[in-house]
């Protein structure tokens, strides 16, 4: 059912990472981060998303925010290290986008990655689908 893009990476905490190549040659790549379709279904109706401030820097696996649903609250952990360069401010008024389009309009934030090697420790789509298959 869920469609996990093959060229993205996935964490055991159920975040996805899409790498967007930066335009400047000396610039670090940017990671778009969201939660997976599996995670949004587990949470149920999202009513509030708390995201970090622009310019904040985090290390991989740091807690960077929370997602509040009707039935539970979940922490957001960044799968990669870096600096926050953009947050999805439309979630403030429409947090339900996380449920409706978790891999699209429901994205959470963009980080300028400080260590692209970290991507290697994340799962590829097939491995992630197997991983959530065992949790279901």
């Amino acid at each position: 059912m869920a469609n996990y893009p093959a060229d993205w990476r996935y964490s055991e905490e159920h975040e996805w990472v899409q790498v967007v190549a930066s335009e400047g040659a000396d610039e670090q790549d940017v990671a778009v981060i969201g939660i997976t379709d599996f995670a949004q279904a587990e949470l149920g109706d999202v009513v509030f998303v708390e995201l970090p401030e622009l310019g904040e820097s985090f290390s991989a696996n740091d807690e960077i925010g929370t997602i509040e649903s009707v039935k539970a609250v979940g922490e957001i952990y960044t799968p990669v290290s870096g600096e926050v360069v953009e947050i999805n401010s439309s979630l403030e008024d429409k947090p339900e986008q996380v449920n409706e389009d978790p891999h699209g309009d429901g994205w959470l934030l963009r980080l300028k990655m400080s260590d692209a090697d970290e991507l290697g420790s994340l799962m590829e789509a097939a491995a992630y689908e197997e991983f959530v298959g065992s949790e279901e």
Partner: protein
Amino acid sequence: MATARALERTPLHECHAALGARLVEFAGWAMPVQYSSGIEEHLVVRRAAGLFDVSHMGEIVVSGAGASAWLEWLTPSRLSSLRPGEARYTALLTTDGTYIDDLLVYRFEHHYWLVVNAANTQAVLAWLQQQLVAGVEVRDASREIALVALQGPGAEEILRSLQLDVSRLAPFAFVEAELCGSDVTVSRTGYTGEDGFEIYLAWESAARVWNGLLDGGANAGLAPCGLGARDTLRLEAALALYGHEIDRSVTPFESRLGWTVDLKGADFVGREVLLALRERGFGSRLIGLELGGRRIARQGAPVFAGDAEVGSVTSGSWSPSLEKPIALARVSHRHSAAGGALEVGVRNRREAARVVRLPFYKRRGEEAASEGGATA
């Protein structure tokens, strides 16, 4: 979900699977928490009608020549005024006046049903066995009697379209009837704050009636609803849930349920303690809070008045009707007045909270705020 442990299944398990329900463990049962979205299902019940499988609830049959007097002794309500065809929301209390369970008592011509919480069925049966007297028989019928709840302003019309006229059924009255070719017992009760019905029927009839209702109600907007919506609906209606607003540490007086207690009538288990409590007053009250912001204060969240911790949240969630976080909280008496400004600690932050009158949501034309519903 934990499939490793064998969970009990309701007779509608296959129906839920076919509808794509998300199942969770609840009191040892595999129960549908939602079919589509809990918020959508909540709003369907407020606008049209929803159908819930609550077959996990316990049904206990009490019969025998001594049944009436015995139940009068075991509950704080004046059950002697209950006539055949009437149900009442009441309590089973310990000798300390605290909750073993809340329940609905149905009076039939020659016997009673006690409808109790799934999580408490065994504890209630043990309590009843312990209190048993000659001339009374107690039988657990929980695995024979299924229960579906049809709730919402469209509920009566949906039953009428299926040739069941319940237009003259008063709140908390019930009738034995036929629905979708099966024998059912239908009461005008519920746990959502809406008009609606609870339909008891044989385990093996459940799927036929469930599917018949969904088909027959489709044009009226009827949708299957899960425990997620059930919880937010009952919270908006400020109906107590065992393990949250009530448990073995609190009495009805501290739970906005003093109206179920009749201290003037016959003696009952817990009466002495409740009488004394009434005399000297009780320290805490259950109140409603509306929170600023969008963070949800959940059970156990501390409530503050200035620097002083004055109580804690018993249930908190998002209110789909009010589109803001709401909570029930038990706080000290002097901070319980409506309109008061308090704060709630939510994950190391303080959120502003306003004390509001209960229930949070009241359906149009609703007569009494104290009108109770079925148990959880």
